[in-house]
């Protein structure tokens, strides 16, 4: 006897009907009103990461859609309860793996707010540079993938080339390309090398040309416009209702950017605009991302121009002392040991903090509860992708299968952020 499957919704129907069962194959009457249920993902070329959409199709038209998550369970929130504040940085790398640097920075900022630490200006400037470079790499890839999902494979690889250049900079700075683990509570793992500045400036010079090329391939391309204009329309009100943030919300006219509205890392010092579109469709999101890349480049230039000298770690006993001092000075050695030994280390005050940064995908919030020990009592993450993934359903119901991929790539949902 077949075990009785306990499931609800479309997935249950998908389970009940054999994937290509008699209902769909037969020429019996009633075939016409039988919808087809297909699994879009978790293994599907257009699903960036292990996302799954269960679609009920009437021909090519999507009648109903169930977004499902749970295929990339990393347990990153639970891991936070077993890692010290610094050890958790490596876990943040693996949430939105396209912008690990932005996650590192967001998390470190949250813990610093909990501790009440003020960063030295150099650390702030370096973080701004890195955060914006991360945004550039994320957006440019997202733009490229937008093209790829609509068939323009070439633009995606051009975007990849630019991303590699950003990763070169990351590697030079942090030692890692994808998983940067660059920030520490109270500062950074390493100083920002001189050479890096030259390399970033060179990259920014060529970036404009490449953006022009990608624009030439996509922005004015009638096919691309046909495919993206009016697709996956989402209003400003819907964005608010669904908690959608970031470029997706700004493409719907929701003028909200944490960098400007609740500045951290002295973002108020930088002169930049928050690009807004009002159409709320795939094309508008593409345009917003494109414009944001330019704004990020602008911020990076300003930050590099005004890069202050000085320490890159907060003074005091939160950050590891200089290695040379550890080898030669007792106080530093003790501080090093106290920070590294389990059960000692950074003692956050009793309390809780919510701090959010503008990650490339939207508002990345960290809610950290501290019980006064060296390990967070609870880490709650508000990753932007979760909210955007919820918005998939209203966006694509009633549209065509081909719009599903356009929608998914315009939302840039990263599976690593979804499950916790």
């Amino acid at each position, binding site marked *: 006897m077949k075990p009785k499957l306990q499931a609800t919704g479309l997935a249950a129907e998908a389970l009940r009907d*054999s*994937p*290509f069962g008699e209902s769909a*194959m037969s020429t019996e009457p009633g075939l016409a009103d039988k919808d*087809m249920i*297909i699994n879009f993902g978790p293994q*599907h*070329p*257009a699903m960036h990461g292990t996302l799954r959409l269960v679609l009920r199709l009437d021909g*090519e038209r999507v009648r109903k859609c169930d977004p499902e998550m749970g295929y990339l369970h990393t347990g990153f929130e639970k891991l936070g309860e077993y890692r010290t504040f610094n050890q958790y940085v490596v876990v943040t790398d693996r949430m939105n793996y396209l912008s690990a640097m932005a996650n590192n920075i967001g998390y470190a900022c949250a813990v610093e707010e909990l501790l009440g630490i003020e960063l030295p200006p150099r650390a702030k400037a370096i973080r701004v540079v890195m955060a914006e470079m991360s945004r550039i790499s994320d957006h440019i890839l997202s733009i490229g993938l937008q*093209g*790829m*999902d*609509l*068939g*323009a*494979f*070439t633009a995606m*690889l*051009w975007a990849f*080339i630019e991303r590699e250049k950003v990763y070169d900079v990351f590697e030079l700075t942090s030692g890692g390309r994808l998983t940067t683990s660059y920030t520490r509570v109270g500062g950074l793992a390493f100083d920002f090398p001189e050479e890096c500045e030259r390399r970033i400036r060179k990259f920014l010079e060529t970036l404009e040309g490449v953006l022009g090329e990608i624009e030439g*391939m*996509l922005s004015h*391309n009638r*096919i*691309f416009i*046909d*495919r993206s204009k009016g697709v996956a329309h989402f209003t400003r009100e819907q964005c608010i209702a669904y908690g959608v943030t970031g470029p997706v919300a700004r493409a719907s006219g929701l003028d909200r950017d944490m960098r400007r509205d609740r500045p951290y890392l002295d973002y108020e010092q930088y002169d930049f605009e928050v690009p807004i579109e009002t159409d709320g469709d795939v094309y508008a999101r593409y345009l917003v991302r494109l414009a944001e890349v330019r704004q990020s480049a602008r911020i990076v230039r300003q930050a590099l121009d005004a890069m202050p000298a000085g320490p890159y770690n907060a003074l005091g006993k939160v950050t590891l002392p200089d290695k040379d001092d550890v080898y030669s000075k007792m106080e530093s050695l003790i501080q090093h040991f106290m920070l590294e030994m389990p059960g000692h280390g950074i003692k956050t005050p009793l309390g809780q903090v919510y701090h959010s940064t503008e990650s490339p995908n939207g508002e990345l919030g960290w809610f950290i509860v501290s019980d006064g020990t060296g390990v967070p009592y609870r880490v709650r993450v508000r990753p932007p992708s979760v909210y955007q993934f919820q918005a998939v359903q209203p966006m694509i119901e009633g549209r*065509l*299968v*081909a*719009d*599903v*991929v356009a929608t998914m790539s315009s939302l840039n949902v990263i599976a690593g952020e979804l499950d916790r």
Partner: protein
Amino acid sequence: MNETLVAVLAVLVKAVIIVGFPLAIVPGLIYLERKVCSYIQGRIGPNRVNLTIGHIDYLLPPSMRGALPVGLARFKLIPGSLQPLADGIKLAFKEEIVPAQADKLLYFMAPVLAFVPVATALAFIPFGTPTWDAFGSGHVINLQLASANVGVLGLFAIGSLGVYGIAVGGWGSGSKFPLMGAVRSAAQMISYEIAMALALLSAIVTAGTVDLQAFVLHQATTWGGAGWLMFKQPLAALIFLVAMFAENNRLPFDLPEAEPELVGGYHTEYSGLKFGIFFLGEYTAMILMSGLFVTMFMGGWSLPLLIDPYATGGLNALLSAGVFLAKLFLVLGFQIWIRWTLPRFRYDQLMSLGWKKLVPLALANLVVSAIVLTFVS
């Protein structure tokens, strides 16, 4: 030499050439495709499987390896030139997985159906000067396997069967994505064949023949040898070109495959050699359509000042075949280039383009052509 014998021999040789043509040229085409796309994308492309003299080393005993000068051993004839061979070997040795839900007969039939009709239809394409008095036998060899005087119709009648391969493959796979691909493909081919046929009608009206060899002669002899129909009938040529992309399932019309949407379309469930044959069929269809375009709109094997359309010499025949090949690769290269440049249409947009734009346009073109021709002549 006996004329009959020569005639029989000539047909056999031509048949071998026609059947072998796609088999011989598709690897080159694949290589071209991969190389062009990688160069466009800032990559190098296949360059690991080479014709390298250094490979002889491996035949030598270990002690003698490295005896060849490095420059010689590392010399690559055409970097990556053996990649299609490697691909073929890989495909041949890959496990063939037959889905449990598949209709076995249809599933196995589909690749054959996709390949054989298009390969057969190649017989109608003239690839050289029509006359060649071979060995002075008096037998005139037509460089065209099937010199039917209704070549266009024949080609279409047979070539259009290719869609069955796709439709049957999609259906027989017993899977949902292939089914959608098959449905898309069938609809798309039917739609665009109409636009294509209407565009061809304009050309036929202009040339006044349906014999493909006569088409070439018409183009080679009017307007001082430059009477190519793409100049005489630019709109029809454009419509044909667009429809050709759709017929071949090439981007921007590759909806039946559309890997971001339908995973792989009709061939999602195919692997190994069966997939290879699909692959072959697809590229053969590309050759067929490009050949047709060359023949009907680009003057076929003719080239002003170089080819004398009425000469029967062997050199002339070879030259004309070379010209045909060059034009063919030009069109193929154009298709490849376009593929890596443009995004893909959506299904409804594709249909609307076909029915609402191309068909009326082609019809109008036909009517105008007919009227103009009537009054001019």
